[in-house]
């Protein structure tokens, strides 16, 4: 990185550290923080969308739709995360490839399952075999996002389902009395009011999601915990210009600070959001806000 870094053996103290902390490997470590934040930024709204869909389906008057929503919530919530991540991602990837295979290679004569192997025609591969590495990584990342969204969506669905039932029934009856259709009642009365009941549960989920990101490496995405373990491990002088002992403690300490700071910022933000959502609601919180001197 810096011009004086050409011969690290002669360096010491802060100069050594400045070179050490700017190696390509460390840069990958810093980038992985961005990966984690990006994952959270995309996963949270997607999971909320899945959750909303699941909750709305579970409430449906049409029995099969309701079964679908309830089944989704029950099954995904019941399966351990790690099992889900290990099995589901590979299954999901294969499902995509199988579908593409059926569409793109109708003339293919060989079986797709050959013993343990899963073989589709080269055109159906996702990403294509000759795609550059970054395409593979991006694809892996989005499969990860989708998996996280499905898992956390199920929990969010359960929270939202409860929140929808928590909205005072009188509100809905009043809407009906005014002649609103079920659809209108849902969108104009129920949904705007349910968030205040959903937020405590959702904020919990957000915190769990932040901490669940190390599962990323199971999916082949190199996240901050992977790099911290890799960089902190004993570095033998035979294989690196920057030998050091077992420094994992320091790297994990840095992660600890990162996670704590991140959850703290989230808490502050969620607290403000709660204040805003409570405004004008028929809850004790809303009542307190109303009575407070303006």
């Amino acid at each position, binding site marked *: 990185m810096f011009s004086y870094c050409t011969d690290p053996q002669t360096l010491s103290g802060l100069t050594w550290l400045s070179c050490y902390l700017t*190696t*390509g*490997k460390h*840069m*990958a470590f810093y980038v992985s923080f961005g990966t984690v934040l990006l994952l959270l930024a995309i996963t949270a709204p997607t999971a909320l969308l899945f959750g909303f869909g699941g909750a709305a389906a579970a409430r449906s008057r049409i029995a099969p739709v309701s079964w679908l929503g309830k089944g989704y919530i029950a099954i995904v919530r019941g399966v351990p995360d790690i099992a889900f991540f*290990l099995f589901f991602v*590979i299954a999901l*990837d*294969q499902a995509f*490839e199988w579908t593409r295979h059926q569409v793109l290679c109708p003339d293919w*004569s*060989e079986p797709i399952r*050959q*013993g*343990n*192997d*899963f*073989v*589709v*025609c*080269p055109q159906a*591969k996702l990403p*294509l*075999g*000759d795609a550059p*590495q970054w395409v*593979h990584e991006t694809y892996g990342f989005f499969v990860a996002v989708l998996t996280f969204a499905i898992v956390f969506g199920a929990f969010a669905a359960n929270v939202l389902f409860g929140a929808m039932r928590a909205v005072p029934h009188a509100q809905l009856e009043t809407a009906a009395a005014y002649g609103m259709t079920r659809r209108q009642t849902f969108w104009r009365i129920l949904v705007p009011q349910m968030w205040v009941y959903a937020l405590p549960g959702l904020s919990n989920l957000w915190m769990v999601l932040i901490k669940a990101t190390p599962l990323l*490496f*199971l999916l*082949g995405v*190199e996240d901050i915990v992977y790099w911290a*373990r*890799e960089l902190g*491990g*004993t570095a*033998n*002088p*035979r*294989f*690196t*210009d*920057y*030998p050091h002992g*077992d420094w*994992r403690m320091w790297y994990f300490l840095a992660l600890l600070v990162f996670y704590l700071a991140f959850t703290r910022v989230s808490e502050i933000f969620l607290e403000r959001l709660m204040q805003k959502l409570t405004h004008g609601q028929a809850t004790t919180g809303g009542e307190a806000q109303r009575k407070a001197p303006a």
Partner: protein
Amino acid sequence: MKKIILSTAALAFSASFAMAQDVVRMGTEGAYPPWNFINDSGEVDGFERELGDELCKRAELTCEWVTNEWDSIIPNLVSGNYDVIIAGMSITDERDEVIDFTQNYTPPDPSAYLAMSEDVDLQNGVIAAQSGTIQAGYIAEQGATLVEFATPEETIAAVRNGEADAVLADKSFLTPVAEEDPDLMIVGPDVALGGGVGMGVRESDTELKETFDAAIQSMKDDGSLNELIKKWDVASTF
């Protein structure tokens, strides 16, 4: 008969297709020096990096390197996320049932114990090993108490902090560790395990297997494989 001819034609067609795209993805662990590790600039390095690049050059393939967690390295191969495992993987019967191996590129080599003192009880003590390795399988059979870890680094750390009495791993991996740390030493007799290290490919990928077999053979024949083994000090030579 007609069917056989047809399917051979289809096979030849598909094979030429596979050759046309020419990119072979090489899956490795990146945490097992000197075999494979991530170097300072964040790239895969080590004996297998150099070997793999040379083999690809000889086979006229374009190769790309991918790292994957050891535990899921075989499932990701068979589901097609990469095409080859080149990760210091010993050829064993159990693995051979799931995937295919090329011929070995290092001879069967001893494993060794690393411990904090000479007088540890290797028969009945607590021995660390990386999960899913031949060493872990061996300890489980021997009756010593096995503690498994996901990465090689953690097995060494377990010995340092006293969680395990010793660690069993490839001798080529443990020797540089023992040289570097005065507290750690190789103890007890060497243990002969496995049938050498080879590249893992999908069972359906016979074409690729043969290509790499030929490339490895050519490196064995002209002695360049032995030079590479000596350079990285990973094993005995052929």
